[in-house]
């Protein structure tokens, strides 16, 4: 094998490709710029540009009678935003988002924990697909399904009636604030549907976070005398928190922006998304819609900032 020792000259890679490659090797920053340029142009110019356009619109105002936009800068629209009726909407939406987030965590945690810690082999796949399929199956179909389920003549009502618990459902629906004529026109209905459609968004990040917790940490806690409940409180929960926060970015953001669910299920009371949609579409009040849109942007801005500090982005 002395043949290995002889050294034929390296084949010359001439031609424009080779020369360009050489040039890029000598100037890595150019390569970086080539890679980053298109996506940055798209996201930075198209997307951020649009966001700023929207922001700018919120400083316009609208002629109340003709509905035409007056393009002189003013804070009048923000004054309007602070009307009690609108503050109600904001408060109602944030409260709903918070409730939905809390409920999603409660339901998601066991699923995520089981999937991360115990599911092996085939079960792992079952859990994975069992979470992914609802996540990706049509959003409208899901909302629609719930309309069928929650209608007064729908399945839940039928279920309660057929086991003779109709009175229980009615008693629940009679509770002011959360009840209503039927589940589909009660805040509870809206809440249920929100929890349902956003739940997978909560499960996945929690599962990802839990999968990053080495099993030895749980054992170490037990080894140091912690009961399972103490282990959960002192080790698992704090370590899953970034995942929870990452998930809540979704549940929060999606609830803040949704306008279809409250339109189809609920009491007709507006949520931010619906208000934005209607001010924009139905009422043509784009400045007010824009001002309304600033609210979730601000809320999510703060949220993202906190989430980033908690390291939730790695769990996204």
């Amino acid at each position: 094998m002395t043949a290995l020792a002889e050294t034929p000259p390296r084949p010359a890679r001439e031609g424009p490709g080779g020369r360009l490659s050489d040039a890029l090797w000598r100037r890595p920053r150019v390569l970086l710029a080539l890679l980053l340029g298109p996506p940055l142009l798209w996201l930075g110019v198209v997307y951020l540009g649009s966001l700023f356009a929207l922001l700018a619109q919120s400083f316009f105002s609208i002629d109340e009678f003709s509905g035409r936009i007056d393009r002189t800068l003013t804070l009048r629209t923000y004054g309007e935003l602070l009307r009690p009726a609108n503050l109600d909407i904001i408060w109602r939406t944030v409260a709903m988002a918070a409730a939905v987030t809390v409920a999603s965590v409660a339901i998601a945690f066991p699923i995520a924990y089981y999937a991360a810690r115990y599911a092996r082999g085939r079960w792992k796949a079952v859990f994975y697909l069992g979470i992914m399929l609802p996540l990706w199956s049509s959003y409208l179909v899901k909302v629609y399904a719930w309309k069928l389920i929650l209608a007064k003549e729908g399945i839940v009502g039928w279920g309660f009636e057929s086991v003779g618990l109709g009175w229980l459902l009615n008693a629940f629906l009679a509770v002011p604030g959360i009840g209503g004529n039927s589940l589909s026109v009660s805040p509870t209905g809206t809440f249920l549907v929100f929890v349902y459609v956003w739940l997978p968004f909560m499960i996945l990040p929690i599962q990802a976070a839990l999968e990053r917790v080495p099993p030895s940490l749980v054992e170490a806690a037990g080894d140091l005398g912690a009961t399972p409940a103490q282990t959960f409180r002192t080790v698992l929960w704090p370590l899953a928190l970034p995942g929870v926060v990452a998930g809540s970015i979704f549940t929060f953001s999606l609830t803040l922006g949704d306008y279809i669910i409250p339109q189809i299920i609920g009491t007709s009371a507006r949520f931010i998304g619906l208000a934005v949609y209607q001010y924009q579409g139905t009422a043509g009040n784009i400045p007010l819609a824009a001002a309304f849109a600033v609210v979730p942007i601000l809320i999510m801005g703060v949220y993202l900032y906190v989430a980033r500090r908690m390291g939730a982005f790695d769990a996204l």
Partner: protein
Amino acid sequence: MNPAVSFRGVSRHFGEVRAVDGVDLDIAEGEFFAMLGPSGSGKTTCLRLIAGFETPTAGDIRLFGESVAGLPPYRRAVNTVFQDYALFPHLSVVDNVAYGLMIAGVPKAERRRRAEEALAMMALPGYGSRRPSELSGGQRQRVALARALVNRPRVLLLDEPLGALDLKLREQMQDELKALQRKVGITFVFVTHDQGEALSMADRVAVFNEGRIQQVGTPAEVYGRPRTRFVADFVGSSNVLPPALTALFGGPPKWASLRPEALRLRPPEGAPIIGTVQGARYLGASTRLVVDLGTGPAPEDRADIAVLLPGGEPVPQPGARVGLTWEPAALHVMGAA
């Protein structure tokens, strides 16, 4: 006195896999006990059985004479130093150390004091407010030790605690661990697959293979008088001689072990055994020579044997003919196969 840990016919099978298979073992109180064996031989599983993370599929485990069947880990007076340390990343160093005390309900000031004390003992004063991620490997290891010791366990389990450290740090930590065990006087059960580590630290060593114990004894016993070929081969880099070669070296026609350092070179003339130097490996303090005692050039006739030349002795060139002498006492004939 009851032994600190005692196994009677303990097995742990995972389906087909016999991770631990009928182990009998007694570890005395205050002993520094090492479990040595290749990867997958069941050492970790043994440790986890003691700690309570696994339940035996057969047999009985006792701690200080009392059966621990059905006792969850958090009810055993045993603490573990995990291979990856398993420090809680969300807690500061001092909170990590104080974790067990917190669980036990020790008041805040008291547990802080004791945690600081334990850190000081581990030569880590002032590191309390750091996060584990801000520590080097050796420092983490000491925190894990402090976290286990602060609970004053009666048995401390250590699963390859030095595996992740580099050589220098590892030697230093070996010395520290040994000194620590002398100081606190509690039973250490130490798992490793590094025979050097086991020999230099332990009072007694158990050599594992495929879920079974091959030999239990002092380091010198295990090194010098291996009971099986496996032990001879695994503990130290011994020459394991087949019966024919044993006979050549003057023993009975049985398997035997012969340590390379027990062999000496001499001129071939009149030497009882003559061979050809195959290669040399400079080790600094010594040189390891491979000598072929074979009778012909065919591969099946080759019988390589390793000889350790102390530093300073001249190293013969490959191909040179050399004679060998040895201390007859060093030829250890093995009872078992």
